């Protein structure tokens, strides 16, 4: 029962498989995309079907500034990964901190938008179909931003405590894939809610 034909040592050395962290995160992204697709379909399906106001055109402002902040945070987190991989810890922390700040600005802008909608326009999740679909879709995205910020914030805290080095680059890359996904979803949500749906 001995191994019939052993591979040569070099062949075993060459035996390379993808990183399980990245594969795992890719799977999560696929699963999450399916969830978002269903919410986006519901949003598109219910455009213009509300029985009463307010309508999107009356109350929604295009969030240019917040969107630019969120999308550029994809670039900063990418630089953070690159710098960490090459052990430039100082620059890594700067880029990561910028990412967290940009993400927080986006979240704050969403909070202000919602405050306005609720207190000035009286639009809640119960008001009409627009309210139901808007708060669910944007809220689902915002909750993903919060999760991403928690993960990036943890990495930042560990970085500031001096516990992060180049060995952790792959883990940060896994988090960054999630963050890129959150940004990509925003492009879809932005298009659907603020362009098509208005």
């Amino acid at each position, binding site marked *: 029962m001995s191994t*019939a034909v052993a591979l040569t040592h070099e062949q075993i050395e060459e035996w390379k498989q993808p990183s399980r962290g990245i594969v795992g995160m890719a799977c999560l992204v*696929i699963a999450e995309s*399916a969830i978002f697709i269903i919410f986006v379909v519901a949003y598109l399906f219910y455009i213009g079907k509300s029985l009463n106001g307010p309508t999107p055109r009356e109350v929604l402002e295009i969030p240019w500034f917040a969107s630019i902040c969120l999308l550029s945070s994809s670039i900063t987190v990418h630089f953070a990964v690159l710098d960490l991989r090459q052990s430039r810890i100082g620059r890594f922390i700067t880029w990561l901190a910028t990412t967290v700040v940009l993400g927080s600005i986006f979240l704050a802008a969403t909070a202000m938008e919602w405050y306005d909608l609720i207190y000035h326009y009286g639009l809640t999740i119960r008001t009409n*179909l627009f309210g139901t679909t808007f708060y669910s879709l944007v809220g689902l995205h915002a909750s993903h931003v919060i999760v991403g910020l928690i993960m990036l914030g943890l990495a930042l805290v560990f970085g500031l405590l001096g516990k992060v080095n180049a060995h952790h680059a792959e883990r940060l890359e896994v988090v960054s894939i999630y963050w890129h996904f959150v940004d990509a979803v925003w492009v879809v949500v932005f298009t659907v809610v603020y362009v098509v749906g208005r």
Partner: protein
Amino acid sequence: MATQTQVIVNPARQRGWLDHVQDWVTTVDHKKIGLMYIGYALIFLVIAGFEAILMRIQLLVPNNHFVSPQDFNRLFTMHGTTMVFFVGMPILFGFGNYLVPLMIGARDMAFPRLNAFSFWVSAFGGLLLYFSYFAGSGLYGAGTAPDVGWFAYAPLTARVFSPGHSTDYWTLSIFISGIGSIGTALNIVATTLCMRCPGMKLSRMPLLVWLYLVTSGLVFVTISPLTAAQIMLCIDRYLGGHFFDTQAGGSAVLWMHFFWIFGHPEVYVLVLPAFAFANEIIPVFSRKAIFGYPAMVAASVGIGFVSLSVWAHHMFTVGMGPGPNAFFTFSTMVISVPTGIKIFNWLATLWGGNIHLTTPMKFAIGFLFQFLIAGLTGIMLSVSPFDWQLGNSYFVVAHFHYVLVGAILFMIFAAFYYWYPKMTGRMLSDKLGSWHFWLFLIGFHLTFDFMHIPGLEGMPRRIYTYEADRGWTLLNQIVSSGAVFQAIATLIFVWNMVVSYFKGEKAGPDPWDAWTLEWSTSSPPPSYNFATLPVVESRRPLWDRKHPEEPDAQYE
């Protein structure tokens, strides 16, 4: 002091039952988690089977009052929900958890702790569903267990029509078990892609692993839509949203779409692992390599993709218009092509083989015939005008039970007889296995062959009773009598597992003279699976080891 030292020196002797419980509760070993999945699914199988028996007793005679109409609604809701989410999914994930790492020569899953988390979350979902029997009334006193049917069509699930908490238990338990399913599927994909032993290229993986890869990929795009729909239902029920609220312009048909976008691929999530077992068992007992390995892989991936475009054949009776009806009729028929490829490949594997009619092989051959018939009634139902006549009738119930019991459950039984020796180190009794097979086969055909006929005669599904002058009485009695055979056969099976665990013949590492890596390690395998990581050269590594003069590697 002296006694304390003894405890430390001799821990094995002092281990009480609590230590064993702690071992199992805190384990991250894929084999133990797999066994827990299987055990927990078997418990729910018995519970949901018992619910089926109660329904069959109720339908035994016309105008019966064995259970109330309200209880009958709860029974079919709980039976369906339990069988799909807390029997089918966990038992298949259990086998996957146990077998995938062993078959690819890995020592564990890619994410062992996520694996444990997924199991416990799923198990909690099942407990939550059944907790509704105690807590569903809530403050309203409005019914206990969920009674909205397993697909819970809107607006029946709205607060107005389902007061109390029973529907909340339904939606939350499915939501939670969905998280577990996605976790396990993610784990299986990462394990398959990243943990293979040297030489185990994708083109050399056992077909079981390939099918679990496809199944898991399907879980991402199947369970997630359901999760999204459950979030929407929660928003409607708790926050006053209007997703499925027709009073506010919402659409009940949207729920149908969302549910069946999950619901139909889910059938393939359940049946692909059954194919996976067939792919391992049929070649071993035909003493031939599987016929058409690349075609099998391609057909599996093809089924995965096509299954995403057939969901609305569950909705022909809604009135979708000629365009969608034609499309979904067509796509549903198309899926029978890759499925047919599989059936022909299994037949070609049997052809000219030295067939050993062991218990697992008997179940596998039963599966082949019954799956074929289930597929044929499926093609009948895929024709939308035919479906308009028979939608929501017992014909539909008979069709999908033919798939779920005749194909999937038969293959699950086969898998038990085949891998039980690996899991426990002891063989299951062949004699009891024969009794189990023949009784179950007779019971299955009595129940589900004859169930088609009242459907054709117009008996709708989910009715709690019927009038005596309908002419359905005798047929229902035949159907119910089959359930008795199946129940007895299942008890024999459980008895077989218990007795064989203590008194079964010792299995040894490779009782079937099989060819995949799980048979190269001891039975049961040690916690680390393989002392040295195997290196493979072909699709049948153990054949290569047993026949070094003529290894498969020369021919692939």
